[in-house]
């Protein structure tokens, strides 16, 4: 089962991070085509036709998101969400670090389409080298007239400002990102108003993921109709999947949506489980989605099929656990993450993640009690759907499914007294 490379078509070409090689491989043709041959609305139309869905995790149709911008003459902004922090997800990182011009071209083309003169690329603080890479690439592109006050002689201004976050997962949530970009604590904003009407500095704003904006480049190049032929009706095009964890060939793989199953991705592309092991489960869409057990590995990788299988496609970050991995340990590790990353704004997320972490830590330490699982399930019910932003639901997705799919592991750990665990460890 081969990859279908659109975004990664040239990623392995030596020197592709430099503008000369990028141009030689056809780079900036989409931007040129958009700016010189197409109206902004034409570009929006192509993206609509392409059925491109947001690649950050939520999968919202990109063209529709763009269409929500009010036509009221106010300044508009495009924010490229490069805060990739979802555990198990490292696809945007590779674009930023290895293929910066693809991202810049996607951002510029999209900014042109939505009528934003100023775009921002928000990078997580840990992407400091990626920031430098992009800064260099932007300078190259500016020198060639791809951005600036008069893009490719069109008389239009398009510009990009880089912005480096400072360490907060929640800033991947779009309104928290806008708060952060405005120099505040990255705490999600109340919606409505949605960013499309009142976003950055109160102006109409579109926030799109790195991979989403990169995908605009091939869409403009090949046309929306052609792009929509890839994948399925509901899940068009290609998508990057980051495969990591207990697997032989971890990596980023670009495949057509709906044409490849989880099993094919894991075995054919990622090389299967480590020697002598077998797969226990995967968390398929970044850590914020339910586990997918091996008996469902024949599920095609697309939004609808994954939902039908009880989980979500999410960001495409596939975390693989083999038969030696402990679901209980992994659950604690994830809860520590969400507890650490909860912004603290709303009660159920702030207190619930802490409480769950404390309970799980006890269980992992062999101090579990009868009734702990019931309490945990009660807490999950009190968080589920009741938090201010999606982080609360994200925090309990994997744990909730772990309790359903692997309850025995938890029960066993609770039944094992601390003393025995110590003996086992020795």
């Amino acid at each position: 089962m081969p990859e279908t490379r659109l975004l990664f078509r040239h990623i392995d070409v030596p020197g592709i991070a430099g503008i000369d090689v990028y141009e030689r491989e056809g780079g900036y043709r989409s931007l040129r085509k958009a700016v010189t041959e197409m109206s902004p609305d034409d570009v929006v139309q192509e993206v609509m036709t392409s059925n491109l869905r947001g690649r950050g995790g939520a999968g919202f149709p990109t063209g529709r998101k763009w269409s929500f911008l009010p036509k009221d003459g106010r300044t508009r902004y495009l924010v490229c969400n490069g805060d990739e922090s979802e555990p198990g997800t490292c696809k945007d990182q590779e674009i930023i670090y290895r293929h910066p011009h693809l991202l810049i071209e996607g951002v510029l083309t999209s900014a042109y389409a939505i009528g934003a003169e100023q775009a921002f690329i928000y990078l997580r603080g840990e992407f400091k080298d990626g920031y430098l890479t992009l800064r260099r690439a932007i300078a190259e592109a500016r020198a060639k007239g791809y951005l600036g006050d008069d893009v490719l002689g069109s008389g239009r201004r398009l510009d990009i400002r880089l912005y480096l976050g400072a360490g907060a997962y929640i800033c991947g949530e779009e309104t928290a990102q806008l708060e952060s970009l405005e120099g505040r604590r990255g705490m999600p904003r109340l919606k409505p108003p949605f960013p499309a009407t009142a976003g950055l500095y109160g102006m109409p704003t579109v926030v799109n993921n790195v991979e989403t904006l990169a995908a605009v480049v091939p869409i403009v190049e090949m046309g929306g109709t052609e792009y929509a032929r890839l994948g399925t009706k509901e899940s068009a095009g290609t998508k990057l999947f980051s495969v990591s964890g207990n697997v032989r060939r971890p990596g980023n793989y670009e495949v057509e949506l709906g044409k490849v199953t989880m099993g094919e991705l894991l075995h054919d592309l990622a090389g299967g489980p480590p020697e002598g092991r077998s797969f226990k489960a995967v968390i398929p869409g970044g850590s914020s989605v339910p586990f997918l057990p091996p008996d469902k590995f024949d599920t095609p990788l697309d939004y609808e099929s994954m939902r039908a299988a009880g989980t979500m496609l999410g960001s495409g970050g596939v975390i693989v656990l083999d038969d030696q991995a402990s679901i209980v340990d992994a659950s604690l590790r994830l809860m520590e993450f969400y507890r650490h990353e909860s912004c603290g704004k709303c009660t159920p997320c702030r207190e619930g993640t802490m409480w769950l972490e404390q309970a799980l830590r006890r269980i992992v330490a062999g101090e579990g009690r009868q009734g702990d699982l019931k309490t945990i399930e009660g807490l999950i019910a009190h968080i589920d759907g009741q938090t201010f932003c999606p982080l609360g639901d994200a925090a309990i997705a994997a744990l909730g499914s772990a309790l359903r799919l692997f309850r025995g592991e938890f029960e066993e750990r609770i039944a094992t007294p601390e003393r025995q665990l110590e003996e086992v460890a020795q």
Partner: protein
Amino acid sequence: MNEEHLAEAKSLLTAFPGKSSALIPILHLVEDEFGYIPQEEVEVVAGLMGVTAAYVEAVLSFYTLFHRQPTGKYLIQVCRGLSCHLNAADHLAHFLYEELGVQRGGTTDDGLFTVEEVECLALCKDAPVVQVNLAYRPRASEEQLKGLIEESRRGVAQHA
């Protein structure tokens, strides 16, 4: 802040459509220069931004890359994301604690190294991952880190 950073900070005040956006970039300058955000600099930044010190503290304490205590010349951040965890990141961290004689979040007495365990660094395919002063060390191993520590110590010694 040194003069160069102060000049850059001032230019940042007008670099964004809204002045408020300059705060985090300016705090990065301070963190780069001092390895943390000293309280006097909180006041300086508050003055530059025209906000209260409490506001600056509110923002900087939200973000993990801003430190309130001095950090070492080399900030070693061991990823403990689930993918790295599955690839024995714990062992790497414990190796560093023993090798350097520090506790989690601690700094060596010579001020050279600070070791932190951090959440997912978004390089899961190359787990286990470490960042040293925010530069990735993919597929990190004990030998590699040992080499890095020795090299750093030598480098500093030579420099001195």
